[in-house]
């Protein structure tokens, strides 16, 4: 049993509000790179890391820490493991309030935007990037750190928002469509060069045909959900991007609730109604259905590739349920085949500010260590991840790894390496959504529109008439999206604008100014009087 449903699926805007409520209290001073002799003391830092419930990834983190501590015996790194970004997000918010944030944290840019509503909580990194001694590739670094130029530019840019770099990319992935090619062909279709939404819907509907006993013709089983999507937030975001429809602006204006979204939801509803489409939240992991021959198109992260296919090295279903089929890995379906668009995702690393700048510097050194070839190549091989540096990607070691696709069903598992190559070949076709305080909630809302629509049609409810208007208004309310765009969406490590002064404060200030004015007049009067008396 590998994974269970996250209990922390709702990343509500409450966190943003809670943090923005702290705007008046004193925050940390902005981090400044220590100029004096650095790192002369003992430092203990905490690293909150996310793994994909994958033992190899845990071991890589542990080895990275051990290797780093050998180089820097005066820096101790404590590892805390998570398997869920949402849990990290919630714990960070809780710990900001108590000034107990980790030093280094795996996270998403959307989440960092929320952390930034606290004062100077997250360290802007551009100054550290460029520091001659301790910056990327700096002269004082005791390991082979990549330079800024050796970071993949697109991935690095994803960590820049609000005028600063608030993170370094750690790994990158995208989504892939894992396909039971055997069943596609059995249904009389051939996979196109570029997958389209129309093709998937058509094949999915064809797969719904049953025999007299209620078994699906394509697999002879009682269960068949031809198309399952793991992350419906990504589904909606990518569909809208491909349609060039609104989602949000960089400034945090929300455009999601538009007519194109409605049209997409209606199409999804049409196919969900008879069971041709479902989601992870509603049915379960796409991999479980795919491997049991109960799904034809499973869309999940490339970082989930080791779970996909007949020979998948990781599997949750019992061996007797696994069906033999040929697995194809393709980019997600497109509306415009001449202009493919897919999401760029994956973990990034941010550094939390502390009172002691030397401690922050120690955190920065460890963060850099995660960018070394040793860590990048090892971690990327655990799943369909891509290293975030050219330095790692161009090594013989990594190129050899890619070239050995299919040699075994473990390290060189073909589906995993195909998924990796999918992203390597399509970096220029990837995009990310704008980051602002509340963008994490907007992302959740995008997925919730699909989840609710699918649930409704499965329950026989009518999604016509005023359904979509109500869905929009309920979703806005649930995720408090009507509160985004104000003070909470500011993204800066500087102190927030405190807004208009209260009337009582204004009166007090006026009184103080008046008193000082009267004192000044009195002093002036005395001076003039003295001058007159002593010519």
């Amino acid at each position, binding site marked *: *049993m590998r994974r269970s449903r996250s209990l922390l699926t709702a990343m509500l805007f409450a966190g943003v509000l809670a943090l923005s409520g702290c705007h008046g209290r004193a925050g940390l001073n902005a981090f400044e790179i220590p100029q004096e002799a650095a790192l002369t003391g003992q430092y203990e830092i905490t690293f909150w890391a996310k793994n994909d*419930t994958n*033992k190899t990834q845990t071991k890589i983190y542990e080895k990275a820490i051990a290797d780093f501590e050998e180089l820097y015996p005066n820096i101790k790194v404590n590892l805390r493991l998570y398997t869920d970004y949402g849990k990290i997000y919630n714990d960070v918010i809780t710990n900001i309030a108590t000034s107990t944030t980790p030093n280094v944290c795996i996270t998403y840019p959307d989440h960092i935007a929320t952390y930034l509503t606290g004062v100077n909580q997250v360290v802007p990194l551009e100054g550290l990037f460029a520091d001659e001694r301790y910056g990327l590739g700096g002269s004082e670094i005791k390991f082979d750190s990549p330079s800024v130029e050796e970071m993949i530019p697109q991935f690095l840019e994803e960590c820049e928002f609000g005028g600063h770099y608030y993170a370094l990319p750690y790994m990158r992935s995208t989504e892939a469509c894992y396909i039971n090619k055997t069943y596609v062909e059995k249904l009389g279709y051939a996979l196109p060069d570029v997958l389209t939404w129309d093709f998937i819907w058509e094949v999915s509907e064809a797969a719904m045909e049953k025999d007299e006993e209620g078994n699906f013709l394509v697999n002879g089983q009682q269960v068949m959900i031809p198309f399952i999507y793991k992350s419906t937030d990504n589904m909606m975001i990518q569909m809208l991007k491909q349609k060039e429809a609104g989602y949000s602006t960089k400034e945090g204006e929300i455009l999601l609730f538009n007519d194109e979204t409605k049209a997409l939801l209606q199409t999804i509803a049409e196919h969900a109604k008879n069971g041709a489409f479902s989601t992870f939240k509603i049915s*379960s992991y796409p991999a479980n259905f795919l491997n049991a021959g109960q799904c034809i198109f499973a869309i999940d992260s490339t970082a989930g590739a080791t779970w996909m296919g007949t020979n998948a090295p990781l599997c*949750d279903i019992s061996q007797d349920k696994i069906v033999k089929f040929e697995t194809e890995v393709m980019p997600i379906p497109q509306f415009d085949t001449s202009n493919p668009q897919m999401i760029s995702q994956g973990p990034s690393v941010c550094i939390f500010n502390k009172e002691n700048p030397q401690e922050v510097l120690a955190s920065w050194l460890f963060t850099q260590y995660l960018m070394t070839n040793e860590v990048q190549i090892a971690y990327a091989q655990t799943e369909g991840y891509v290293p975030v540096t050219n330095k790692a990607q161009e090594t013989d070691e990594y190129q050899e790894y890619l070239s050995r696709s299919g040699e075994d069903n473990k390290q060189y598992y073909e589906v995993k390496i195909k998924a990796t190559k999918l992203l390597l070949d399509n970096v220029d076709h990837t995009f990310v959504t704008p980051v602002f305080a509340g963008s994490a909630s907007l992302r959740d809302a995008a997925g919730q529109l699909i989840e609710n629509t699918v*649930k409704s049609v499965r329950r026989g409810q009518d999604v016509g008439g005023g359904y979509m208007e109500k869905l929009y208004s309920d979703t806005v309310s649930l995720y408090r999206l009507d509160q985004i765009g104000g003070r909470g969406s500011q993204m800066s490590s500087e102190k927030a604008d405190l807004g208009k002064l209260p009337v009582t404060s204004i009166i007090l200030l006026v009184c103080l100014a008046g008193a000082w004015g009267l004192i000044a007049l009195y002093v002036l009067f005395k001076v003039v009087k003295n001058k007159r008396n002593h010519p």
Partner: protein
Amino acid sequence: MKKITSLLLALALVFTCAGCGSKGGDTAGNGDADVKSEGVMTYEEYVAAPLESEVVIEAYVQAKQSWWENKATVYTQDKDGAYFVYNMTCSEEDYAKLTPGTKIKVTGFKTEWSGEVEIAEGATFEIEEGNYIAAAQDVTSLLGTDELIKHQNKFVSFKGMTVEAAGQDENGNDVAFLYSWDGSGQDGDDLYFNVSLDGNTYTFTVESYLCDNTTDVYAAVKALNIGDKIDMEGFLYWYEGVNPHITSVTAAK
């Protein structure tokens, strides 16, 4: 005074005997616990209801698994069967009222997730008069049979099972339990351990939201040795097959 003390002790027993490390027992306050109110399904009717249909049930909270952002997940049971209620709408204040034995009426949709039949996210509930805590039903003999799934989500017991290796540590030595399914986790994560009976091995779990690392059962599983004979209690959860969420482990009697 003695009467008051006795009453307090009795109440304390009711509140503590279910959940992690509990000894379940039938402490129904009356004999008509399963007489359903108007418009409420019997367990039989619930089982017969198709997936994705609306259901209304009355049952008694046996254990609370989690609460987050006004969503509560609870194990409930009546005298005929059990109902897993996933992420029902629930304020933090109401969640505190859901002590073991509390009777609730739940309205929601029946669904299935990886084999687990449950009342889906978004169900609503109201607290009613009544109290019942189910005794653990011994289902040891049903392991590996098609009969077992009929007891899904019930508070059950397994007797005289043998602890097997759950995996290996860094040095290749067999270990009796793992943090997370493959050992990738840490203290505080779910515990996974294997137990066998008659040559068949089953994977059981201490679900960390249901029983965290401060509970007796969490400590008991961490203290297991391969070859130990143990008795267990827990809830008969399902995930791609039986995946009991264990709440108590003791040496086999």
